[in-house]
């Protein structure tokens, strides 16, 4: 019973394919892919709509105000209204813009985000695009985003756009290194680049309550935190939203976009967020595995989307809590802290492996991480550079 519920979408797909058995041979894989793409787009567009309104409501809650509450019950139809507004807006293209580049940029951004979503296993046997080097594919596609952002900034022929694009590329390039390096320990321990293999490696429970997720190891927990922070930067979310900080440079590389193109950028940003969170779930949070052995009867995709939603909530939470960082702080943090720590985690994972992946390895890798962390925090301590603050007029 639970199995059939678990595999219900797979069965549905096979049922559709069996209906089309009359078609020629070469069409079957194409149809299969199309079904995958359709399902993917459907799910994530829905999620996008839901998140866009939920984010506003949660932020409102955090900031002591109502969120959207006019369209539909509890304002739940707000995304529909937004969508209609976006679609019927005039599409303004600056006269001096590089029209082709300006046009391609949002498409490329969205394409990259959607492609990246393709390699993530959403449930048992539910990977839309299962290839051997899935993680690498994710990052290869993800790195295209930088180019797309640049095209947007350059094609607009606008100083704000260009500045925003430069900022975005700078911080994305900087944080791509820790992002990739923090996946390395997992890849190293699993011995495969395929997300399915990584999820499979996190199967099993100790005492049937402690899941074997990588986040349960010291290096995995640290890597998860680093990965999450890098993900925040990669998706240009607060507190790392300098590329599109409204109070500084209007909307960064999206300044000259309006209407549906702007909506595409907006959507791509959220899709990117989904992709990064999905990868984090896959790499560290055990993918679609349930947290307790007893809860295995609940379908796998439910667990995946539960974890994904939890992460997305943290994204929103962070946005509602933290102020924006400065550009130089972001860069210093990347090169002076994230990168050394990421390298350390590789060593820590190796230590964990060679100590037999048991309790001893757990402790030793914790020691390695703690040592380097303490050393780095001593080295990077900037407090001593400032004089103690004196309050002259506020005694």
């Amino acid at each position, binding site marked *: 019973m639970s199995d059939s519920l678990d595999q219900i979408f797979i069965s549905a797909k096979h049922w559709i394919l069996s209906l089309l058995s009359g078609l020629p041979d*070469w069409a079957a894989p194409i149809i299969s892919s199309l079904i995958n793409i359709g399902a993917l787009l459907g799910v994530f567009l829905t999620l996008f709509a839901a998140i866009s309104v939920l984010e506003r409501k949660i932020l409102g809650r955090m900031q002591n105000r109502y969120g959207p509450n006019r369209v539909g019950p509890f304002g739940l139809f707000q995304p529909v209204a937004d969508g209609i507004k976006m679609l019927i807006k005039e599409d303004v293209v600056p006269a001096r813009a*590089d029209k*082709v*580049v300006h046009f391609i940029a949002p498409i490329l951004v969205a394409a990259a985000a959607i492609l990246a979503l393709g390699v993530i296993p959403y449930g048992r046997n539910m990977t839309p695009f299962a*290839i*051997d*080097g899935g993680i*690498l*594919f994710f*990052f*290869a*596609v*993800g*790195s*295209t985003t*930088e*180019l797309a952002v*640049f*095209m947007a900034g*350059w094609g607009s022929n606008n100083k704000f756009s260009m500045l925003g694009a*430069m900022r975005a*590329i700078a911080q994305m*390039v900087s944080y*791509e290194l820790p992002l990739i390096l923090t996946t390395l320990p997992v890849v190293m321990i699993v*011995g*495969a*680049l*395929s997300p399915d293999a990584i999820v499979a490696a996190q199967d099993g429970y100790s005492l049937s309550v402690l899941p074997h997720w990588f986040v349960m190891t010291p290096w995995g927990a640290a890597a998860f935190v680093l990965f999450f922070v890098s993900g925040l930067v990669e998706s240009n979310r607060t507190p790392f939203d300098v590329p599109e900080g409204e109070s500084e440079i209007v909307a960064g590389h999206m300044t000259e976009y309006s209407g549906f193109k702007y909506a595409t950028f907006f959507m791509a940003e959220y899709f990117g967020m989904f992709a990064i969170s999905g990868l984090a779930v896959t790499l560290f949070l055990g993918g679609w595995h349930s947290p307790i052995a007893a809860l295995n009867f609940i379908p796998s995709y439910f667990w995946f989307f539960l974890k994904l939603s939890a992460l997305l909530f943290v994204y929103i939470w962070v946005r509602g809590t933290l102020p924006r960082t400065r550009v130089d702080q972001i860069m210093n943090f990347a090169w002076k802290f994230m990168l050394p720590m990421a390298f350390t985690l590789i060593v820590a994972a190796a230590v964990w492996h060679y100590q037999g992946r048991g309790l001893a390895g757990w402790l030793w890798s914790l020691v390695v991480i703690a040592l380097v962390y303490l050393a780095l925090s001593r080295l990077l301590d900037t407090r001593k550079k400032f004089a103690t603050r004196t309050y002259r007029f506020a005694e």
Partner: protein
Amino acid sequence: MNSVAFLLIAIITLAGALAAAALPRLIHAALSLVVAFVGVAASFFLLGAEFVGLVQVFVYVGAVAVLIVFTILLTRREVTGERGINWGGAIVALAVFGGLLWTILKTKSLALPAPQIEPLTVKRIGEALMTNYVWPLQCVGLVLTAALIGALVLVMEEKREEK
């Protein structure tokens, strides 16, 4: 591997490359170069070397293209630098193409179909890199480090003089 895909990829690759070589605006050429690279990566996929294809996209699109674009931005002031095409070079390039094409076509043994092979997994590549090719791997690491430092020094040196 089918010929439709091959044809498509070949057309995209060559078109992108031609655009990269011939477009008057540098930025367009650079973006066309990205298209050509993606095409080459696709043909790697077609040939069964998925890993190399991904690396190709990763390195060229993610890094080299961004670098080129940045360089264009930093050296943008000169707009009227382009003064037509050096036709002598074009003739030489054409001659080389002709010569190579003639040689390839002349060699009959090259017209062989693809044999069946077991798929090349990332694991195999990794094992090869860590066993037989570990020495070249280290050398490449060294070269990359040296290039990184060298590039930094090259760009920084002038800056200090300007101050």
